[in-house]
């Protein structure tokens, strides 16, 4: 499969997913009044007023918080996964991370709000803590499930640690890194909104909270559409990078 084909399939899948959501929303909106579930058309007409100039700083703050939390989770989670693999502690890491994952986001959010207060750090910490287990578990498991016969070949050929990392461990990690980026970004987006919902005076989550309190469902749906579009754009972007530069690590490419 060529790089372009791989990329276009990814774009098509993303757009298909969005289109299916849109259709489901449209169909459901036929069964509910507009003040409970407005139709896509109603939301589109209301969008210029909802997503006005005042909305942009909120969106920018949300993106910054999400990216900082996500990068923290990605870095720390990858380091933890690698460390667990090196120290033969993958199973222990899995148990610990699963336990961390079980804590409901809302409860963790309230704890973080009490500890960190209202502001940037509650949503950032929430994103980092809720995304980290997925990243760490995936990295540790990808390394544990590397191709042992290839490792044996490299060792028999006299390869040192550097060669093992370059020819075996990194290639084994690349598909996992992509799925971590994909899953982590989606999860991070969801969690940052929750974090802002609980403990912020600004950001998309805060706007959603205000709109929800007022039962302003047109604004709620408009904000959700923005979240969906941002996630889709990121997904297409990361797919472009992996398709262009790293296709050979997805075999068959």
């Amino acid at each position, binding site marked *: 499969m060529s790089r372009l084909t791989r990329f276009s399939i990814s774009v098509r899948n993303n757009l298909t997913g969005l289109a299916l959501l849109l259709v489901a929303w449209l169909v459901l909106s036929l069964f509910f009044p507009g003040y409970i579930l407005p139709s896509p058309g109603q939301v589109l007409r209301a969008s210029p007023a909802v997503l006005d100039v005042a909305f942009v700083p909120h969106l920018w703050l949300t993106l910054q918080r999400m990216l900082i939390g996500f990068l923290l989770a990605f870095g720390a989670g990858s380091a933890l996964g690698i460390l667990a693999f090196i120290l033969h502690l993958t199973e222990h890491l899995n148990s610990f991370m699963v336990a961390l994952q079980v804590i409901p986001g809302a409860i963790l959010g309230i704890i973080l709000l009490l500890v960190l207060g209202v502001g940037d750090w509650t949503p950032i910490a929430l994103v980092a803590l809720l995304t980290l287990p997925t990243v760490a578990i995936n990295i540790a498991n990808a390394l544990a499930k590397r191709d042992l016969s290839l490792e044996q070949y490299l060792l028999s050929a006299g390869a040192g640690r550097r060669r093992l990392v370059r020819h075996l461990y990194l290639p084994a990690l690349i598909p996992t890194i992509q799925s971590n980026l994909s899953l982590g970004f989606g999860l991070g987006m969801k969690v940052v909104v929750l974090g802002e919902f609980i403990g912020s005076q600004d950001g998309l989550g805060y706007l959603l909270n205000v709109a929800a309190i007022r039962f302003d469902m047109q604004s709620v749906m408009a904000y959700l559409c923005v979240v969906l579009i941002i996630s889709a754009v990121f997904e297409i972007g990361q797919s472009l990078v992996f398709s262009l530069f790293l296709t050979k690590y997805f075999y*068959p490419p």
Partner: protein
Amino acid sequence: MMPDDMLTVEHLTKRFRAAETPLGGHSSMPEPPVIEDLSFTIPRGGRVTLFAPTGAGKTTLIDILTGLDRTYEGSFRLTARNPATIFQEPRLFPHMTVEENVILPAQIRRIPLTPAMCEKYERWLEVCGLTAYTRYFPYQLSGGMKQKVALMRGFVTDPDFVMMDEPFKSLDLHSKQAIIRHILEVHPNISLLFVTHALEEVPLLTQSVLLFKTNRLANYTTHDASRLDTILMEAIHG
């Protein structure tokens, strides 16, 4: 050990640890050794076949000699400057092309890619019928083609000792003969430890045969590889 010996194996014994029982304990049955008090020598330039039934521990022996398995009794001494191993399965790197796979051992050992080596590589491609496939990835090749790539990878760095664990298993007779002829033509003085249970391959490639009749590597008889009929009779009737 004689100074011109390539490989000397002395009183090598290998036991696998007893399998754990479903309740977590260990089986009370003592595990019989898969290799028992094995000693043999391959002189420099010697080509030896190790012919034994399936499950006799041939691959285990290769694992020990390549340093992959370090839990054994006895000892061995390998004096090769540039040894290579060709495994039963091709073990090609799926993200590398044929060419990248073949030159990998040279990169690992920091052997410069000289024009002579490139010429050798080209010749190997011709012999294996893979000239048009150098940019292909392993998933685009058949099982036999992958095995040919593994064979090329084993020989292209000009090794002085090669351990081959049933390397021709997925090759047709014509390819097998062409490759063996090429090995002997390009590497007339190479030392080989050739592991197989396909008798017809023995006289094509090696000079002597260590014949094991039981399903473990213990007692053996030594034969001249060219006397296929004798080996066959011995293998059948003991």
